[in-house]
């Protein structure tokens, strides 16, 4: 496998070049070539969700995507959340509700929730529970993750009504 491709990835708003074998996963490129180690490897077969990133706004498992497939897409990783070293509202909610213990699953849950809330800003608790069941957490028992995401949804709804929402609402998906 010496065949290599020079690709350009748009990650968190910046362009990055990488020389990769076609079999190299997006996950490995993000972590090991670009040094964005916030995204984690939990299973490499698409079940645990620790590697979840946003690709064009959709939560995607970076272990199931080859890096060469991600060219021309907009990729967002956990490193894009929050500004100037401050936590985003979602990150803060995870901390307030003790939605993380070891923190290994956390970036995956944050990106999953970020992508989900963009599409379903009014989601209720059960819908949120259903959505986050895509990812595994071994420490928390999930309840506090549901709490954190629900609280964020609620506070964003309130903020939207008041016109101060920190996260722009996504254009309605067809």
């Amino acid at each position: 496998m010496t065949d290599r491709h020079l690709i350009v990835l748009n990650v968190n708003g910046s362009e990055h070049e990488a020389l990769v074998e076609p079999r190299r996963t997006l996950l490995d490129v993000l972590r090991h070539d670009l040094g964005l180690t916030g995204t984690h490897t939990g299973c490499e077969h698409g079940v645990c969700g620790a590697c979840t990133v946003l690709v064009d706004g959709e939560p995607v498992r970076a272990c199931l995507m080859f890096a060469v497939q991600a060219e021309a897409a907009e990729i967002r990783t956990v490193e894009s959340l929050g500004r100037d070293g401050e936590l985003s509202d979602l990150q803060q909610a995870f901390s307030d509700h003790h939605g993380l213990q070891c923190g290994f699953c956390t970036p995956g849950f944050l990106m999953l929730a970020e992508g989900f809330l963009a599409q379903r800003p009014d989601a209720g608790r059960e819908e949120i529970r259903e959505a986050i069941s895509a990812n595994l957490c071994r420490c928390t028992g999930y309840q506090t993750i549901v709490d954190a995401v629900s609280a964020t949804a609620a506070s964003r709804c309130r903020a939207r009504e008041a016109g101060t929402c920190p996260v722009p609402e996504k254009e309605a998906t067809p």
Partner: protein
Amino acid sequence: MTPRFDGRKGRWVGASVPRREDPRLLRGRGRFVDDIQLPGMLHAAFVRSTVAHGAITGIDLTATLAVDGVVAAYTAADLELGDIVALLDRPLEEFVPTAMPILAKEKVRFAGEPVALVVARDPYSAEDGVEAAVVSCEPLGAIVSEETAFAHGAPLVHEEAPGNVLVDVSMFDTSGVDAAFEAARAGGGCVVEVVTRSGRQNALPLETRGVVASWDDHDDQLLVRMCTQVPHQVRTAMARSLRVPERTVRVTVPDMGGGFGQKCVVGREEIAVAAVARLLHRPVKWIEDRREALTAGFLAREQRYRTRAAFDSGGRITALEADVVCDMGAYSCYPFTAGIEPLMASAEMPSVYQVPEYRVRGRAITTNKAPTAPYRGVSRPQYVLAIERVMERAARELGLDPVEIRRRNVITRFPYTGVNAITYDPGTYRESLDLAEATLRDEGWYEIRDGAAARGRHIGIGYCCFSERTGYGSGAFAQRKMTVVPGFDISEIRMDTTGSVVVTSGTMNHGQSHETTLAQIVADRLGLHLDQVKLRQGDTERIAYGWGTFASRSVTIGGSAVSRAADRLGEQLCAIAAHLLGTGQDNVRLDGDGGVVQVDDPARRASFEEIADVAYLRSHLLPKGVEPALSATASFDVPGDGTFSNATHAVVVEADPGTGQIRILRYACVEDCGVVIHPQVVDGQCRGGIAQGIAGALFEEITYAGNGDPSAASFIDYLVPTATEIPDITVAHLETPCAFTENGAKGAGEGGTIGAPAAVLNAINDALRHTGVELDTTPVHPQTVLTALDAASVPRREEASTPS
């Protein structure tokens, strides 16, 4: 007189302060082993046996070495490492020592056992190299169960262990056991016998094991960064295997993505990688993949109990007899040995009940399966399952309410010394049971259950009462007769010129919030702001020999060592302050706010900053004989038998006889872990533990085919519950301060896992009470329910409603 500011409950202890580990973890700025990249780093992958039991006849690595990117490949013969040997100090009839080679030598003993190590420029090439390796094996019969292990003429997993038994201990056998059984039969009581089993599980930290090892020429030392709960024990075992002095090995631990016990034993892969890094003088990384974690990581929980109990007509237990068999897999783990599970079970099986007569036999057997290690709760989920099933069975026989029979048997007077010679410190066994029951009654669950039965729905209520020995000191471990005896912890605390402190602890955080909770203890003890306390863990060079984190010991033992070190530093601060204030040492005390005040004139005060300034920068002002170092070290070991956290779990489930599905409708936990340092963290430990207990009760299991092939090599086959399977859980706290720890706390890490399997299983049986079905095995898969209903000739709902 100790000058301490009372730290039991203070400004910080008892408050759910924001976790200090959160910001970095939430920003993706934690540092886990796989995040470490070093210049010139190579990557390791293991060639693993596909055969469960076989004699190695050849290992051909020619094709491997020809793979592009592969740098080297090694077999056991190339590395010549010492084996890992875990020992118990017991006679040969009770314990057979065995060795775990770093790479398999003449024989493989389970499918997944490492046989050779490939090192390459990147992980992809390393795996290519593994694929090209050819291992030839002559299969020997695989031992996959208790039955095959004990079969006449069965092949031996270890030649030195006849009958495939590693540990065989009979304990207690009090004089009145047989008489009590006879009396129960004759006198209107009852004798029940229950066989309980629990399936083999994986502790499954989300971060798999991993290591980055490098040889540091500058320090003439091997630097091993790895994911372990027990850095010092890894260093000890590694130095022994490499046959080098311990000072030439330094183990550091970055952030850890969970462990749950699986990472509190010494693994062979990490030692192999370290040896290769030393040989090549290059950094080498190995990150276990999920397939390896499932098939070759340390597993746990596969146990069988045959339990007999006698009850008098009043529903009081009069004798208990048990035969316990634990399937430990292919190797004995270091440092705990294959004795960890049967010895724990045998010693503590009477649980929270007043059992007057007791006899037990505990055995560890060896099989051709991945080896086992402690997993959150260690045998307690299993023996609690056994005794709680006994209680339920006896309640049925005697026509008693399941809560009532427990109430008549739980220990209520403390300290209580049991038939197992263990002294239990005060707890809330009875109170937690009463509160749990009252909770479900007040919420109307009993009416819901009974109403459902009338409408043909199967709703059931189940309870589990237990206590959990935490804070095992070296005395308690010594009773096990381990030759390596864990127990104490050492802490050092050092103040800088600004009055802030750095505290070391030999415990090892992997999600339990030590950076926050241990800092809370110190902050209150000295009267500092939380931000002025920093915790250091996980570096064998900077931290005194410690026993890491397992058995819920971090706050009890680690936290007590930290408290004592803080007190000693407090004494130093007081001594210097008294001198500076020109008064006697008896006339000063810590003021709880970053300073020392004069007792008879509180207007006179020296802040820590002023004291530290003198201690370090103007040491000529120090009193005579006082050293210019604001630093104190203290150790702590729990006296006696340790301390006992307790809880009652109450569960409501609905069983669907059509699909066999079990749905949890309500989960309530009432727990007592003594003084609660950080309520949110304790709740988190309970809920996370309960989720793992539910996983064991309903979902997770690794079975083996007759040839020793494991059933689960990916998350497709190993069913880890998600947010839709784990219900919301309420946690209520009772607080019985512990007299044996410095901070009044008892352990809180494992309880949830211990209580859940029995509570869920009891609830399922209650739901099925009208069908005659009674299940005693976990996990309860939907198929288990359907098969049992079929066997009991209970029509499934669709069938029942379909006219024939």
